[in-house]
């Protein structure tokens, strides 16, 4: 392998794929980045076997070939390279790559590219395409609600489902649930669903650049591939059956109120400071046209917040874990939200005003 390239070429590729390289792993080869020079492009691959990231960049290929370099040292070197033409060459008969930037040179001992896991190519027969902006929004508004507990793998994922030519994302940790729909560009008639690790979705969302306009999802039985710009991310799917989320969404409510997102979010933030540690309980008392938010921590003190609301239903009281509330208030972008409640034991629903495509369900905390 021998190529001529610039520092930016390398930096972009390395920074992209490095996100998939595991920080510690029993398999030494996975701590490397696979570099492959072919057709005047340099292809980068990094993987932890759960997720793989590939991307490519145009370079001048003098001799095709591939090499595997330690991700940590290679990326640190690339970051510090001078802004000049860089020549990279795999020394024939060795695994060492020599990186030359006149008049200096650094040689890095690599690993055998043959040992690098082959990431299977996916057939393009089942694909959906949507705008990256929509995709990013959907991930932002759902993925945070997934569970972190690896003992319950299904809930560490986000359900991606296609129904009525719309993509749905649903995430839950059984205490709260986020649901979002988005328009897809390609027509897609068959019903399809899969559980994608939330981590992979967040990573894809992070890797999408502003100039990438659309993202393509390629689906198979056990893997999903995201393609955008020069980059592809492949992730395994989580096996299992996602529980029936439709069953848990209440269809009616007794209290329906409208409140300013910012005022509510700020009040919740302040009240949460004085919520009892561990349970983070804050109480909401909904009256005719005001909502009183209180919290009490015997050691620290107590908080009383009052904000104006527009209530169209019964007066009620309810207690929530403040973290679950502030999580959703951070991702809602409308100025006002609707809160729907039915007594102090049934789940509450939060939706952005005049946006049918998002719903957040939150279970109250029993306080007595």
């Amino acid at each position, binding site marked *: 392998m021998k190529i001529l390239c610039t520092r930016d070429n390398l930096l972009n590729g390395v920074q992209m794929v490095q996100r998939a390289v595991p920080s510690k792993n029993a398999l030494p080869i996975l701590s490397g980045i696979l570099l492959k020079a072919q057709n005047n492009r340099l292809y980068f691959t990094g993987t932890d076997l759960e997720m793989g990231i590939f991307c490519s960049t145009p370079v001048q290929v003098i001799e095709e070939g591939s090499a595997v370099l330690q991700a940590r040292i290679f990326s640190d070197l690339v970051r510090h390279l001078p802004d000049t033409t860089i020549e990279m060459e795999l020394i024939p008969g060795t695994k060492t790559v020599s990186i030359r930037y006149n008049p200096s040179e650094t040689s890095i001992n690599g690993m055998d590219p043959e040992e690098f896991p082959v990431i299977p190519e996916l057939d393009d027969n089942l694909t959906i395409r949507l705008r990256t902006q929509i995709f990013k929004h959907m991930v932002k508004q759902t993925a945070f609600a997934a569970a972190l507990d690896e003992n319950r793998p299904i809930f560490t994922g986000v359900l991606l489902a296609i129904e009525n030519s719309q993509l749905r994302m649903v995430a*839950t940790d059984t205490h*709260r649930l986020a649901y979002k729909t988005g328009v897809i560009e390609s027509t897609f008639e068959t019903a399809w669903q899969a559980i994608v690790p939330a981590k992979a979705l967040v990573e894809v969302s992070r890797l999408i650049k502003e100039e990438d306009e659309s993202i393509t999802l390629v689906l198979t039985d056990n893997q999903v591939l995201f393609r955008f710009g020069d980059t592809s991310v492949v992730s395994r799917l989580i096996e299992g059956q996602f*529980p*029936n989320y439709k*069953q848990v969404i209440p269809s009616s409510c007794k209290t329906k109120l409208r409140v300013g997102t910012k005022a509510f979010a700020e009040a919740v933030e302040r009240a949460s400071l004085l919520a009892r540690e561990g349970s983070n309980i804050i109480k909401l008392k909904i009256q005719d046209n005001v909502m009183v938010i209180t919290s009490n921590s015997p050691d620290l003190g107590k908080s009383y917040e009052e904000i104006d609301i527009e209530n169209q239903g019964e007066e009620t009281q309810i207690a929530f874990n403040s973290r679950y509330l502030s999580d959703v208030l951070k991702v809602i972008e409308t100025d006002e939200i609707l809160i729907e409640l039915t007594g102090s034991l*049934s*789940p509450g629903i939060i939706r952005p005003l005049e946006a049918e495509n998002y719903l957040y369900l939150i*279970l109250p905390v029993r306080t007595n």
Partner: protein
Amino acid sequence: MQLTQALVEVEEKLQTLLQELRSLQVYCRSLEEENLRLKRELCSFGDSEQAKVVENAAKIEGEGHDNLARLYNEGFHVCHLHFAQPREGDCLFCMGFLRKDEL
């Protein structure tokens, strides 16, 4: 010669198939008869007996729901995903399940 041999083989196969068909016919007839008998039996139950069955079913269902609700209140999941596992805090799916039962 080969052709004759082949024909003989075909004949043998046909015969075994025919035998199988006959035994199936007998079996089918017996099933039909039983079905008819059961249907007659079912019709002979009076309204009072039917009401008793319905009532019993409702009772069992009610008891089942109460048992599940109790199990949930004692701190265990009743949703099918984590059935009987200890729970921390309320679970949306258990509550959804118990609520659906009430409808």
